[in-house]
């Protein structure tokens, strides 16, 4: 593109003309970016505002578009994202701490360390649909080694307990949440690493000089200093989890569900899936419902983004 820009300008000559022309091109490009976002939001608003009311938020899905609601999907999303947060955040921060704060001096270990780092970069690039297959095989079916979900070989509690667990998990909340965890884990690790890297070394040296062990240094000095950055990255990762549809689609498929999950193994549907379902239907009326669903989803995501920005600004002071 640089080349074409130059070609455009050259025949006319004049270095300053070229400069001004490029400014125009830049403005045009930026304008296209903003216009695209504008058209996208406007089209969704226009289609979605009509159906956006209390019924959408409180009703279960329905075969009649004007009665269709997103409530079970919303709660389903909250459940799977909670599972995802409770597993991905500790694992992610733990890995980041290991990689940033415990860099080994030993040569073999250093090579292993580098391998883990490279591995995480690669995991971040794995398409989410592949994580869906991983989740399906490892969590839902448990490699088919433990029978099938209709006839579990091991259970904990009964279906009346929220903590009911069975092996294999089946297409439940836990399997969905853990799969999302796999998707966002690399994002959390990388952003937490960046936050830890931004902590000045002088703080670490100070703590060590006062006689702290490495663990104490991390817990009392480095982590508190890095928390704002870690939180920002984590919130953005969670907003990715909320909007992620492909892996959940592989795990749970499209399901008509009118209730909210009772326990960890219960069936669920999530907002992006419900929207996918509506968007794929031929009736215009369902497209409008889909647009309304998108508005709800976007509102949640914007809240998350805003929270990330506020945290960033508050702690920067």
């Amino acid at each position: 593109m640089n080349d074409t820009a130059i070609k455009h300008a050259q025949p006319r000559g004049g270095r300053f003309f070229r400069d001004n022309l490029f400014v125009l091109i830049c403005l045009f490009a930026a304008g296209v970016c903003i216009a695209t976002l504008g058209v996208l939001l406007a089209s969704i608003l226009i289609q979605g505002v009509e159906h956006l009311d209390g019924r959408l938020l409180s009703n279960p899905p329905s075969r009649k578009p004007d009665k269709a609601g997103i409530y079970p999907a919303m709660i389903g999303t909250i459940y799977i994202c909670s599972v995802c947060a409770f597993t991905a955040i500790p694992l992610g921060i733990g890995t980041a701490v290991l990689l940033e704060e415990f860099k080994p001096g030993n040569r073999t270990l250093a090579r292993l360390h580098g391998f883990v780092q490279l591995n995480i970069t690669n995991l971040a690039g794995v398409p989410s649909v592949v994580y869906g297959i991983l989740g399906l095989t490892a969590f839902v079916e448990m490699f088919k080694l433990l029978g099938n979900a209709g006839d579990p070989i091991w259970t904990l509690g009964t279906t009346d307990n929220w903590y009911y667990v069975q092996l294999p998990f089946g297409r439940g909340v836990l399997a969905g949440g853990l799969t999302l965890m796999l998707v966002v884990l690399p994002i959390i690790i990388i952003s937490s690493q960046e936050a830890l890297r931004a902590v000045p070394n002088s703080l670490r040296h100070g703590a060590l000089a006062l006689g702290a062990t490495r663990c104490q240094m991390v817990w009392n000095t480095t982590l508190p200093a890095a928390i704002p950055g870690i939180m920002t990255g984590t919130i953005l990762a969670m907003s990715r989890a909320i909007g992620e549809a492909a892996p959940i689609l592989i795990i749970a498929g499209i399901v008509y569900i009118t209730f909210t999950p009772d326990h960890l193994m219960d069936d669920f549907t999530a907002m992006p899936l419900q929207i996918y379902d509506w968007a794929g239907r031929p009736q215009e009326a369902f497209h409008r419902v889909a647009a309304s669903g998108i508005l709800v989803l976007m509102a949640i995501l914007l809240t998350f983004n805003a929270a990330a920005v506020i945290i960033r600004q508050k702690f920067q002071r």
Partner: protein
Amino acid sequence: MLNRKPGALAALTVTTLSLFGGISAVQAGDLSGAVKIDGSSTVYPITEAVAEEFGSEQRDVRVTVGISGTGGGFKRFTVGETDISDASRPIKKSELDKATENGVEFIEIPVAYDGLSIVVNHDNDFVKTLTVADLKKIFVEGNAAKTWKQVNPAWPDIAIKIYAPGTDSGTFDYFKEVVAGEGESIRSDMSVSEDDNVLVRGVAGDKGAIGFFGCAYYFENTDSLRAVAIDGGKGGVLPDKGTIESGEYAPFSRPLFIYVNAKAADRPEVNAFVQFYLENSPALAEEVGYVRLPSEITELAKANYQSRKTGTQFLNEKGEKVHGPLAKVYK
């Protein structure tokens, strides 16, 4: 959550009563538990409607209805993962074997008639009637027609684009059986989707397109699609409620089924759901665009369910497929 045992007793009483008293007696609303359903996207609208209505009476029963195609549904059903399987064709030998192997017994219940509609775009003004021979030219592999002109010289030279349901769907099996028969197969260069909505959108957007799927989706989308009359030898017949129920819309009308796991049917919530299904499916099937079964068959289905008559009637002792209209085969 309610304690299961008293609930179960009450439900049994209630559902026994409901046999005589109609659905009003099931409205106790005191059941809990879960009913897991998966299967055909063709039967889905009926089951979804039944589940929705059932849900407004039995708020604590958790009904899930998935869409995995008839075969995908049976895959889960025959290992006991689901309680009910939606099917737009009778169960196959291989699936029956799998069920037997896993000790899954089931009750076969026809729930409605579905006409298979052959549809074209609204702007397509030349195709009015198709014979089975025409359909063979369009759909059967081996020098399949690329343009409409190749099907009928009077038609324009527009490329044919085909939108077909997934091969795992009962709709596809049925179509294949009628159009291709034994030894032949349907061409492979078609756009295939398990989701009928995709097909409707596809045909609605392309002048040269042709597609086939259950009539329900056509009835719902008459403003964007046009059905083609089928000439089964006695002149062109368009699909509508009358012609499908009478069998005049030959050879493209067929029954839809649900398969109920016999062990699951002993659970009060599943039992209540199936009872509700049997009572309400004629009306709800009609509402979502299918054709209700004649009342004799509905009554027969109720009786069969009540006596827990297991197994399929569409496979004989040797495991061969039984052909013929529903009223003859289903006993």
